[in-house]
């Protein structure tokens, strides 16, 4: 999405003066000069759109509202709702899920390979960080880099042996790895604490659920920034080329293996950071948390959010995190309606609705939530409200490589 933003901005500038000139020239001198190619990309926008003062105020109000929802409500600042500790816990979980969603987005969205074992990546991060904090007695601020490092290392190891396989077979290996990690690795009692679980103390200053939420938010911001910068780097552009067509990319000198591995390691690092936070968020860490169902939910939230669309992935992850255990249903006071009409208890709402959303996404709206909110996102950035924004072929799931 941000790519198209850049092109339209470049396109809009010369158009101010150039557009009338070119039309005169083509009348007078025939085919002497090609009209600027960019002109036909913005033919529906003759002059660059500048919102009026009211428009800016409206946009500012929506931004402020968003900021209020994200920053103020969970901390009970300027808020009419008195959120309890458990509600803020769900908000932290939503932020952590967003980190995990971004991690999976790197893999599915940027490289087109799919991982059915992401719960293992997250779990490794969680248990390594828990081990470092509880058993080695180190600080949280040391545990996160260690967990991220181990997460990157295991991704590198798994990638080194399995990225020789493509598409479906790779998915199969990740599935086997997920089950292996869940049953075997996390079954090592000395490492994970076994069935009894582990209580991981939070870092100094963030013991409180409210302050911990802001810690998760800060980590999410860092991950978002790193993801954005990485995708703008040489490696990120190489990945984009790779996903479009690996053969063409490799003929331009892009090393397919190395860059897929690069994405795989980034994904592993992000997932481990998410896992390290998840270990702190749940007061009680048990291996059973990281089951195959969780991996499926991770895939769901990423695809429904909209691949290669950071905002969409974050929103999708937040929705699915809140759907779990029925928080969203409780917040909206829908449990009575659901229970009386179709007899669906709130805690199963996400499990039943989520897959239906997924199937709708891939069959009808391949761009996911990211595509649906594109008009609003464009408007918020100071563009005209265009209900057809975001309907570009860039945001399709169907070009995921097999």
């Amino acid at each position, binding site marked *: 999405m941000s790519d198209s933003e850049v092109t339209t901005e470049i396109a809009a500038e010369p158009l101010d003066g150039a557009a009338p000139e070119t039309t005169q020239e083509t009348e007078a001198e025939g085919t002497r000069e090609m009209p600027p190619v960019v002109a036909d990309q913005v033919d529906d926008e003759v002059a660059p759109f500048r919102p009026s003062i009211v428009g800016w105020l409206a946009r500012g109000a929506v931004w402020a509202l968003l900021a209020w929802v994200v920053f103020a409500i969970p901390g009970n600042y300027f808020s009419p709702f008195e959120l309890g500790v458990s509600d803020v816990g769900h908000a932290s979980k939503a932020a952590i899920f967003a980190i995990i969603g971004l991690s999976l987005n790197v893999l*599915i969205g940027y490289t*087109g*390979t*799919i991982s*059915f074992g992401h719960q293992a990546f997250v779990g490794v991060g969680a248990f390594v960080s828990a081990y470092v904090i509880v058993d080695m007695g180190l600080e949280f601020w040391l545990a996160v880099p260690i967990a991220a490092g181990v997460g990157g290392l295991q991704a590198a190891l798994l990638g080194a*042996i*399995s990225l*020789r*396989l493509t*598409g*479906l*077979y790779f*998915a*199969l*290996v990740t*599935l*086997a*790895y997920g*089950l*292996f990690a*869940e*049953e*075997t*690795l996390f*079954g*090592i009692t000395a490492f994970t604490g076994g069935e009894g679980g582990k209580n991981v103390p939070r870092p100094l200053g963030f013991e409180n659920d409210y302050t911990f939420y802001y810690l998760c938010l800060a980590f999410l911001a860092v991950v978002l920034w790193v993801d954005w910068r990485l995708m703008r780097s040489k490696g990120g552009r190489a990945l984009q080329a790779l996903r479009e067509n690996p053969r063409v990319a490799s003929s331009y000198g892009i090393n397919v293996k190395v860059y897929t591995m690069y994405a795989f390691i980034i994904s592993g690092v992000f997932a481990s950071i998410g896992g390290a936070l998840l270990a702190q968020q749940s007061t009680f860490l048990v291996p059973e948390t990281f*089951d*195959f*169902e969780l991996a*499926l*939910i991770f*895939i*769901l939230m990423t*695809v429904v959010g909209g691949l290669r669309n950071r905002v969409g992935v974050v929103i999708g992850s937040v929705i699915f995190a809140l759907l779990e255990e029925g928080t969203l249903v409780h917040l909206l006071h829908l449990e009575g309606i659901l229970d009386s009409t179709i007899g*669906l*208890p709130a805690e*199963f709402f*996400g*499990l*039943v609705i*989520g*897959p*239906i959303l*997924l*199937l709708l996404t*891939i*069959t009808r709206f391949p761009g996911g939530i990211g595509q649906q909110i594109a008009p609003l996102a464009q408007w918020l950035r100071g563009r005209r409200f265009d209900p057809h924004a975001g309907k570009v072929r860039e945001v399709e*799931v*169907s*070009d*995921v*490589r*097999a």
Partner: protein
Amino acid sequence: MTTELGIAVVNGIFAGSVYALVALGIVLIYRASGVFNFAQAEFGTTGLFAAYAGVVLWNLPYWLGLLFGLAAAVAMGLATERLVINPLRNSSRVTLLVGTAGVALAAIGIQFWQSNEQPIREMPKIVEGVALQPFGAAITWQHLITLGVLIVVALALAVFFRSPSGVAIQAAQQDGTAAELVGISVRRVSMMTWAIAALLGGLAGVLSGPNLTFTAGHLTFGAGAALLPGFMAAVLGGMRSMPGALLGGIVVGVIEQLGSLSLFGYMSGGGEMMLFFFLLIVLLLRPQGLFVRKAVAA
């Protein structure tokens, strides 16, 4: 040690016959739609839940309950083909894969919801009791029946793929356009394949369900998880060979049981470890499968 090994092998063969049933369905669908069907095991669990509803909740005769379970599995297979696979026929394989995973998760969600009051259930066996005890491994009649059904199914499939309908399926799988030109309806063939595969999945479900208590997602990630072993069996057969998948199922069953030897006694999840490393070795050394034949296998 020999006794232990014997028990592992015998248990493995009987566990493997369930995997083989799942693997046969996976191979059929891979050949027809080119997709790894992650919902294959869920056809089984859905069939199992339906059969349970028939036999235990509505007190139907056992055979009628089984029939209802299989019918539910086939209905789910047909619905999957119509609602997910057919609309996505032009998308990439990974999209299709996500689609089948979505079908599986939807089924699991509905099972969790419907079995909320009583999450752990028990399906009665067809014939109760232990039939024989080689090396001290208890082989129930249910196990023997499962193996018998597998053999019958394998023979029936072999015969079916030589009948006109079976030949039509193979033709459509090899070249859809050419098959259409000679008057084969690819749409009908695709539905037929999914129905047969769902029937195989359903059989795996209703036959393996009574061995243990079951929960939602029983065959996908529950106690009777057969999805990953089924895939591995299919991979052993090179994803295309049906006899390969059958043999692969048995091999995978035995290998998984080897993980439960006292050699690995101090660790949990030995079976999963064996499966993971076995899959890696097979995919890296012989990605074309262990038991592949040149000719188009029936």
